[in-house]
């Protein structure tokens, strides 16, 4: 009568009965400005966005935008990544005024908003996560993309949160339950089962 598998299932059903889901909104003006300028630039480009020249400009920015919305990073890593991308794109745009004179102003507006992120010292996503994460409880941060997890683990190693796990949503298919599960990003990024078959009490 000592099988832990059944006990795990009992816990899971108990949790699924008492789950509450809370949505937390995070304000990050500098990131918001960058996202808006990038979206505006997409609108200006129209079909040109599929051209190789602009793809090389847009893809690193889209990846950075997603990364900053999907996971918290170490400040040094985050700033280094932003400045590397900014430098590379600055170089990429050196002939833009001759190739696309109508678009160069919009492109540099995007770069300016990217540089604005370098000057923003605060990290509202990390601040909110730390506010929600209790050191005494078994907490998990669910990260949409597994490639981001090692970078988040580097951050967590410096935070002294021994009970915190960084997981991919697919890991929530097994029977492991948490006291608290924090899904980082909009709910549409995650499989429906993260919310319909919860592995924690408050999400």
């Amino acid at each position: 009568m000592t099988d832990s598998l059944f006990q795990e299932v009992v816990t899971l059903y108990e949790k699924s009965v008492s789950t509450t889901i809370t949505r937390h909104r995070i304000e990050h003006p500098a990131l918001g400005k960058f996202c808006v300028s990038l979206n505006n630039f997409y609108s200006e480009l129209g079909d040109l966005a599929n051209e190789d020249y602009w793809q090389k400009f847009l893809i690193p920015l889209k990846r950075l935008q997603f990364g900053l919305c999907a996971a918290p990073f170490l400040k040094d890593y985050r700033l280094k990544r932003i400045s590397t991308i900014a430098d590379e794109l600055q170089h990429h745009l050196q002939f833009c005024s001759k190739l696309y004179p109508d678009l160069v102003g919009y492109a540099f507006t995007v770069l300016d908003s990217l540089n604005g992120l370098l000057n923003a010292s605060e990290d509202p996503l990390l601040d909110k996560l730390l506010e929600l994460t209790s050191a005494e409880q078994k907490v998990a941060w669910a990260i949409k993309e597994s490639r981001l997890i090692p970078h988040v683990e580097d951050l967590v190693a410096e935070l002294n949160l021994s009970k915190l796990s960084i997981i991919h949503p697919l890991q929530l298919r097994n029977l492991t339950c948490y006291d608290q599960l924090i899904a980082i990003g909009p709910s549409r990024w995650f499989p429906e089962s993260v919310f319909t078959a919860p592995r924690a009490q408050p999400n």
Partner: protein
Amino acid sequence: MADYLPHLYYLSSDNKAELLPEWAYFFMRLGQQLSALPNDNHRVVIGLAVPTRVFACSLIATGIMFTRVGSQSIVNSAQLHFIRNLKPGTPIYVHTDDNRKLRGVIEEFKIVKGEEWIFIRTGKHEVFPRPLSRFASRITVSSSVSSLPEYSGGGYATEIPSMFLQCCLGEELAQTYILDSSFEVLLIGKKSVIEREVSSEFIGCKTSDKVAEIPGCLQEILRVRQFSGANRSYRTQCVSSFNITPEKEIGKQVPPFVIFDGASAYISLGHKWRSAHQIVLLDRTERQVVDAVELLNQNYAYRLAGVSSLSEKIPNGIEMMAYKESI
């Protein structure tokens, strides 16, 4: 026996024996209710969306088994008298639970634990001992002369019911239960996962004096053929959801109940065994759950009627649909 469910316990995280939780009894009672439904040229399909599929299929099958075990036929005294007076060597037919007719000869009659048993030889190494009072109704005398191949006389060790099974079914019924083979339930899913669940010794049954829990596993009740030793009697069979020709493994026999343990099992084999009642377990975390729900909804559109007789309260976290389908 139809409504009978023994008090089953599990060991909680603080090492206390506690009654199985509400959801576990829900699955068992669902199995019981389904097996008690009349079979009037239709079948019942039950779809369940659960937070995890673990243990759901084995508990439903256990509920079915508790009802089926109680529905064994009672013999009238004239038939009993007739069979008792047949001589050893008389060729007979034995009618099994699944309406098969086995050919055999009467080997002998014996008194076991104060009860009269008939030993029927059906093959060179196969002898089926059965309690005569409960089994005589299934025996008819063959009009043709039956001949069976010579046998070496090696025999086999008779299985003894475990304490857990005796606690669940009672000593007398447990003895009959382990000797009889019948195909009551077919489980379709990942075989290794189902085997792990049914073989896990998480469950216990309390004796009538309520002193201690007797540990056991669901395999003792389900008796899944694929997880038992060779030549053991069985009640349940299990096939993999990836097996595209399950008939090769289980034969052409149609079980009364089929449980699909997961979306992929239903998608790949849901069209088979049209006359069997179906229970479809959908784990919400599975990749193919949306496809399986769509398939279930498509079939629901062609339903005969709903099922009003399943009155069980559904625990939180579980969703259920049930409908009748023409065979």
